[in-house]
């Protein structure tokens, strides 16, 4: 499989602070790679370096097998970018914005190309509106069209759905999934939203303090978390449940007087339920929540501590 992007020993230092610490990774053609990590992990800095708007302290970047530093213009012609933090020119209309970008990317027949995407995204009614006057969801749609205007081979997306309502996020993700299928676009995607990453990405690169701490499929990453969450609803005294769990040295959290969530290895679940049934407590409901990417995220962010996810 062709490597669309190859990064070797990338480092970015600001005085005494290392934002990106000697990271190496690659992205294959047609692959969607998620960049995940807590705030300050170095995700956005890495994306900015990959786009050429922040210069690296060390390391090499190759797009399509070409050195980005030496063939910057040529590479940028085949890349595009979308982010919730970068908007288009607010004072001018959507049509005018898209026309500017179509020319910037030297698109042949710019008007035809814009209409192709406008029709695909059902955005005709937005064309004459000033970009500033659009809703957050409409802006995201137009940002995506801008990111597709040059038929890029890879799109770098930095939290493209940040601060959108769940309905718009769902629609945006639907469009991204459709684009992945229909155009086989390669994606490098950063987000704080685990569901989003799980839905869109084939592989995840987990960053923490500028370093890659894990790199695998979403499923394999969640498998690294040994503990599940056992949610029990019971009849009886909270104190008694607490006493039992303390005796078993289990980590737990009460949602209310009659519901407790226990962090536990899956294989120990039967024995715990059996143990509780021998007390005066009466279990009325059992729910086992398998580890998610969010658990993995929290596990890394809290330095290996077993956590009970809020699911």
């Amino acid at each position, binding site marked *: 499989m062709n490597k669309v992007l190859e990064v070797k020993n990338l480092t970015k230092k600001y005085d005494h602070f290392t934002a990106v610490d000697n990271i190496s990774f690659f992205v294959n053609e047609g692959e969607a790679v998620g960049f995940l990590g807590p705030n300050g992990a170095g995700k956005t800095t890495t994306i*900015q370096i990959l786009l050429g708007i922040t210069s690296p302290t060390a390391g090499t970047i190759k797009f399509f097998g070409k050195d980005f530093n030496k063939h910057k213009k040529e590479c940028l012609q085949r890349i595009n970018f979308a982010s919730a933090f970068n908007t288009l020119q607010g004072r001018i209309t959507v049509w005018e914005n898209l026309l500017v970008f179509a*020319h910037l990317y030297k698109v042949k027949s710019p008007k035809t190309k814009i209409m192709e995407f406008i029709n695909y995204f059902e955005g005709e009614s937005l064309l004459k509106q000033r970009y500033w006057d659009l809703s957050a969801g409409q802006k995201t749609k137009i940002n995506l069209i801008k990111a597709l205007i040059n038929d890029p081979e890879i799109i770098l997306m930095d939290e493209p759905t940040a601060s959108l309502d769940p309905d718009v996020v769902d629609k945006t993700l639907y469009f991204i999934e459709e684009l992945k299928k229909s155009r086989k676009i390669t994606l490098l995607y950063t987000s704080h939203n685990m569901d989003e990453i799980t839905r869109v990405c084939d592989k995840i690169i987990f960053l923490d303090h500028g370093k890659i701490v894990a790199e695998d499929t979403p499923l394999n990453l969640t498998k690294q978390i040994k503990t599940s969450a056992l949610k029990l609803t019971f009849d009886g005294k909270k104190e008694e449940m607490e006493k039992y769990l303390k005796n078993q040295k289990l980590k737990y959290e009460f949602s209310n007087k009659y519901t407790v969530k226990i962090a536990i290895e899956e294989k120990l679940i039967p024995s715990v339920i059996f143990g509780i049934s021998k007390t005066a407590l009466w279990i009325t409901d059992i729910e086992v929540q398998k580890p998610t990417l969010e658990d993995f995220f929290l596990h890394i962010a809290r330095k290996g501590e077993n956590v009970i996810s809020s699911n």
Partner: protein
Amino acid sequence: MSFQVIKAILLQEFYITKHSLEVIVDLFYFSVVNIVVFGFVSLYLTGSNNPQAAHFILVGMILWEIIRVTQYSISLGSLWNIWSRNLSNMFVAPLSFMEYMIAEIIAGAVKAILIVALVGAISHFVFKFDILQLGIINLLLFFINLTIFSWSIGIIILGLIFRYGTRIQALAWGIIFIFQPLTAVFFPVRILPDFMQKIAYALPPTFIFEAARANVSNTATNWNYILISFGENIFYFILALFFFILMFNKSKETGQFARNEG
């Protein structure tokens, strides 16, 4: 170098100007108000002991607009995009610094021509002073020299904004006015104190304003002043380009370029 890319920036400049009342006010309104105020001052001076001073003021005012408008256009062009959080989008496209600069220079020149034509017409029809009496060739040489100077100042300010962010954005429309007294826009250089005269002669527009004042009564081209001005302009322009590249690279190194919009 791609014409289509340059056209993209020019299109954006045109659309922003068309849609922004601020740009129209900054460019046209201030120019018209300035020429009206200075026009009336010149009418008043026409009746005084030194009627020639009236023409000096109008000549200075009209030529000053070339500097103000060109520099404004170059410096503000990027600020509109920074304020809209669109600058990164522009620079992650295959847009080179040279293409961007050429587009901004063309946009600045077009605006300056329009403004000079407008204030020149007001001066002619309302205040009975025809700027064309300086001579077409002279005017062309003045225009070239003053625009090159404005490019240098615009590029330096742009570099500072890229490097230090919008906290110094006021320079974009404020700093140019320091050159009004320093380049003796409205009065002969000899009026200035000695140390200021030395500064004045180190600045290319000074020679242009001096030559222009002489052309009010005699249209002979002062080639000496034109060439000195041009020489200084080339020197400052190269210096400005180096300064901009230095600031641009430093801005990318410190991460300020990306942070400008955050």
